[in-house]
């Protein structure tokens, strides 16, 4: 879409504030389920989002696939804003930006044919299928998406940003005597085609783990000292703590503000948690968020103390704090809301050996199938785990589900590892559903965690 068309539509708006976001994307997808190809296809998605504010009204929003008449869409949004009486909505000031953000890719996946993409997925799938007779089912997928977002608002900001993403995911299901176990790995990056090649060794670990889990006992439910591997700890940072630091949870709720008051101690000195949407190559990275605010680092917990939170322009204005570049939308169907980008527990000083050596009986929780939080309560399923016995990693166990209360659990983090790493994938399901994020952490030890299990 031409810049003049968008700017002309903005100029014609009668609203006090107007923004337009147009998104166009093309995705190539290859998916195998067992020996069968589910699909090898290309889908095109194009749509737009318009949002208006008028004095004394609320947000008026229009979303659409037919982008041929932007002026009419703005008119619809303007009428929507006028149709409701609402508390005045203010937006925090941000710099006016103008930029065309290109993301160059080595070996750009757009220049690779479907033949090669299908062969790659098929080879990974064959590795899973032929690994062991007990592997009865697989999911192997390849997805690349090249998205271009154009954002413009009535304050003069205009940017176009490329948002490419490439993913491969492998999942294996092993079955023996009616028992079914699953293992999963994925790689997801802002990168070209080479990033998803040559991962057969990783694929084999998936098949091996699914088979090994068949003979693994379920963990015995009780409280344990737990070491989370970096991926599990990253999910913990995102799910258990990150969501509470999103300002839309507190900005209209005085009781919640009291609970999340800056300066409150949440953990020991060793604990620092931050969010940073500006780190090159990660899934949660963009130059600008979906309101045009530049992204950057925001410390949430520093040396154990709550020091910051994540904002959109609206929540920042309401709380008289600075916008942080966390107004993100899942796509053109959705308004930007406060979301995390790349959230992490900063690396510490304890080696893994020191962390484990004094645990008599504990659990080593690895990777997360998923996590969910109801603010103070959380629940995470580890993809697999090991018992820790007398300071050493012992037998593989399954059905490791960590649950507990956030405030108690953060205080119980008593060792932070020196081996920080980013996870290769991450998705957040808040509100509008799947948004790409990254999570990172070193190994982290938590005392006295409730592990559910039979």
């Amino acid at each position, binding site marked *: 879409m031409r810049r003049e068309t968008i700017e002309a539509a903005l100029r014609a708006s009668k609203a006090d504030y107007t923004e337009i976001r147009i998104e166009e994307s093309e*995705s190539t997808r*290859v998916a195998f*389920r*067992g020996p069968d*190809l589910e*699909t*090898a*296809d*290309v*889908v*095109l*998605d*194009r*749509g737009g989002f318009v949002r208006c504010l008028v004095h004394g009204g*609320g*947000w*008026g*929003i229009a*979303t*659409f*696939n*037919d982008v041929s008449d932007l002026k009419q869409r703005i008119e*619809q949004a303007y009428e*929507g804003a006028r*149709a*409701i*009486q*609402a508390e005045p909505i203010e937006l925090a000031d941000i710099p006016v930006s103008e930029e065309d953000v290109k993301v160059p890719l080595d070996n750009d996946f757009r220049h690779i044919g*479907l*033949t090669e993409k*299908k062969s790659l997925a098929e080879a990974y799938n064959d590795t899973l299928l032929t690994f062991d007779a007990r592997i*009865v*089912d697989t999911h192997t997928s390849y997805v690349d998406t090249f998205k271009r977002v154009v954002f413009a608002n009535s304050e003069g900001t205009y940017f176009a940003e490329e948002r490419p993403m490439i993913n491969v995911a492998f999942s294996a*299901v092993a*079955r023996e005597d009616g028992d*079914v176990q*699953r293992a999963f790995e994925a790689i997801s990056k802002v990168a070209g085609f080479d990033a998803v090649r040559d991962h057969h060794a990783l694929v084999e670990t998936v098949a091996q783990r699914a088979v090994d889990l068949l003979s693994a006992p*379920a963990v015995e*439910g009780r409280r344990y000292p737990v070491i989370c591997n970096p991926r599990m700890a990253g999910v913990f940072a995102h799910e258990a703590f990150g969501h509470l630091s999103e300002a839309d949870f507190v900005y*209209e*709720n005085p*009781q919640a503000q009291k*609970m999340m008051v800056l300066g409150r101690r949440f953990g020991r000195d060793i604990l620092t948690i931050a969010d940073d949407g500006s780190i090159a190559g990660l899934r949660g990275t963009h130059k600008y968020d979906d309101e045009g605010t530049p992204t950057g680092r925001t410390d949430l917990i520093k040396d154990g103390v709550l020091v910051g939170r994540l904002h959109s322009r609206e929540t920042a204005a309401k709380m008289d704090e600075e916008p942080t570049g966390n107004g993100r939308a899942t796509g053109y169907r959705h*308004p930007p809301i406060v979301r995390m980008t790349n959230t992490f527990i900063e690396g510490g000083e304890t080696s893994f050996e020191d962390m484990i050596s004094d645990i008599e009986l504990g659990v080593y929780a690895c990777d997360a199938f*998923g996590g969910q939080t*109801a*603010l103070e*309560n959380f*629940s*995470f*399923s580890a993809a697999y785990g090991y018992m820790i016995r007398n300071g050493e990693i012992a037998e593989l166990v*399954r*059905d490791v*589900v960590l*649950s*507990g209360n956030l*405030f108690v659990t953060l205080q119980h983090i008593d060792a932070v590892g020196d081996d920080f790493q980013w996870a290769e994938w991450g998705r957040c399901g808040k509100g509008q559903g799947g948004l790409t994020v990254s999570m990172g952490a070193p190994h982290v030890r938590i005392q006295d965690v*409730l592990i*559910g299990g*039979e």
Partner: protein
Amino acid sequence: MLDRLMQSAEQAEVFEISSEATKIGFTANRLKSFEVEETQGMAARVLVDGKLGFAASSDITAVDKLVQNVLESARYGDQVALRFPEPQPGPTVQVYDAQLATLSTDRLIEMGEEMIEIVREADEQASVSIDLTRRVRQTTVRNSRGVETVAKKAPLSIMLQVERVRGDDVVTLFEYFTTATLDRSYRRFVRRIAEKLRLARRAASLSSGRMPVLFSPNGAPVLGLPIIHGLNGKNVYRGISPMAGQEGERLFDERLTVVDDPTLDGRPGSSSHDDEGVPRQRNVLIDQGRLTGFIYDLKTAALAGTEPTGNGERGLFSPPSPAFSNIIVEAGELSVDEIVAGIDEGLLVESPLGLGQGNVISGAFSNNLSLAFKIEGGKILGRVKDVSVAGNIYQDMQHIEALSSESEWVYGGIQLPYMLLPELNVVTRD
């Protein structure tokens, strides 16, 4: 479009979707946004040399590219013995209520305000956010064998989120309601939420152990999800459903009957044909504990060498796959009060966390509970925090103590009674 595809294909199908919606948003007890949404898109499938191709686009002007993409996709597709269906009549179902389709913005706002008031009467510190969406959605399936089925629905959906913070004590509820008929049932939905908040004001403590656990309709998907996965033809064909090959066997307590019913008037999950033009039908899948069937779409049925059951569902960007229309678990005979009255000490599961995490297909579940209550001496005593339940449905549902006579629709398309399991593993902090 069909004609163009048939120049190169043996069989072809075009799926079109269009919808218009109006959405009213309340945030933290206050009216916040008004949204209009327009959706359109087109997907195509073809069989060329017996190989299946798929493509989709939300830009309906990009017809050339869609044709090119779907034929390209078929070059790489697998051989599938799939035949698109012939035109066949389906059941008559009412899912378009003109009154609902034209519901005014003012009325939507009134409904939202009314719901906030009901919740805040139960707890004045509750922060309520609501999205009310009125939608008219039309999908059309056309294929080269002459099928042309049009499904027009007007669902009303309500997403309601409550947060109540007192000190470090937090209650959060996230609930979903949908209907295709305009009635007062949304009030019952919101009153139940208010009742939960009221009950949550009192705290209770519970020790770990094995005890009777009563699942409310909202909590019962902990048990239902593995069944939903297990009955899906795709998991059966792949051999990962523990129910595969067990048709005719009694797998659960005879109190359990599970039906997929797309013929119910007023339910958004209902329709006369599925998204592949196959007639819908009511299917009993578990009959008094005995496994009687699975659900299939066209492709999965073709692969498995069985008949499609009218359960092919799709979004714009994905090929069809087997999905339930409305899942009904048949109700029992005792009232909820009678069931509670019979429990000396136990747990009432209201809101589970982590649904769908873990090894669902195996039947194993282990869920922390964001909202659960202690039952003592036949009464609901108060909220228990930091509690989780665990088990495996294939063992633990061998015996179901009771199902309530009352049922509710939860998560959109699932109708469930309260379900009492006599003994389940409960882990708490105490």
